[in-house]
């Protein structure tokens, strides 16, 4: 009987630190930046924010790659500033709700259909992988015009 009580006490002690629940995974659109003239990686000073939102996603960061969060709607709109030249990008996609577990919850994955964009700094966009899942991989390559000497 004493052993049984000890077992209960050990289980009670163990239960004090058992309730750890992981957050659900997240799917991000991974974008790489390449120089449209040389096809080499380019590192512009980048600021990104969602149209209609006040919070910036990325602020003045020098990057070659970026992860973008898509919305639960059928399209997601971003303003992207490359070295203070602003472009608008619209990602048209399908949103698929996924189940992680009852401990962590649900998340979204996406299938990218098309991309609309302005051409201030963006030359073109190439879709590498249209499936945006919890396993992050390069989804699109964004070819950016190099800055002219006078703009540097």
């Amino acid at each position: 009987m004493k052993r049984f009580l000890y077992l209960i006490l050990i289980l009670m002690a163990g239960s004090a630190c058992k309730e750890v629940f992981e957050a659900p995974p997240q799917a991000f659109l991974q974008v790489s930046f390449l120089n449209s003239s040389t096809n080499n990686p380019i590192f512009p000073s980048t600021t990104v924010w969602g149209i209609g939102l006040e919070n910036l996603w990325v602020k003045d960061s020098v990057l070659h790659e970026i992860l973008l969060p898509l919305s639960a709607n059928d399209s997601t709109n971003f303003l992207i500033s490359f070295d203070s030249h602003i472009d608008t990008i619209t990602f048209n996609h399908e949103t698929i709700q996924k189940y992680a577990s009852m401990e962590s919850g649900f998340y979204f994955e996406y299938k990218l259909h098309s991309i609309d964009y302005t051409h201030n700094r963006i030359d073109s966009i190439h879709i590498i992988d249209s499936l945006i899942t919890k396993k992050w991989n390069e989804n699109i390559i964004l070819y950016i015009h190099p800055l002219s000497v006078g703009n540097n």
Partner: protein
Amino acid sequence: MRILYYTFILCLLATISFGQAEQKKKVVPKRTDNYIRMTGIRVGMDVTRPFQDLWTKGNRYGSEFSLDMELWPNWFPVFESGYEFMKIKTSNIDFTGKGSYSRLGIDYNFLQAENKNDKDILFVGLRYGFALASQQVNQYQIDSYWGPITGRFGNQNFFAHWGEFLIGLKGEVFHNFYIGWTIRGKVKMNHTDFVLPSVYFIPGYGKAEKKFTLDFTYSVYYNIPWDFRKSLSDKKPDSKK
């Protein structure tokens, strides 16, 4: 967990093959305790079910009762039935799963009795278990840069069934009062599933995503001292009249 699953399957196969080998040799010693020791029906309650919350993730509670009797010497048909409830509430999800389950099976005692009053048993058993249950996601939230998305999934009813292999002990502590434990390996056979969300918790089994689970029970029993064989034999002369 996959290692445990395969270990369990190997043990099962080894037991079956051992049994076959024994049959071939025909050297099984005859038992000297070939008599009914426990007359009546034994009613039990698993005292661990209300405290499962202590060692499982989420809030899991339940209750379980059992009935067994020594129908043939050393063979005990068993019926077990219970109810379990599980709740998980985090910032991302509010989940409730609940339902009743039952198991039918038989235990075989391989502990030789010293005399008719020796009612302690060491047994192995097999069970077929099934559950009728439901689950509901009262609310979920998906956090995002674009703002949180909330939603819910209504009540989903499902059926699940599984097999169990167990080993245990029951000892008489006072006249007609017993205590005992079992260790159970459970192998899932099948369950109803949904596109979204999947079945998470099967009452009486555990997490639905697992093909094999291990469980432990500790029960108290009372043997209702009703000798049905005697009652039947007493009735026979009456019926002739």
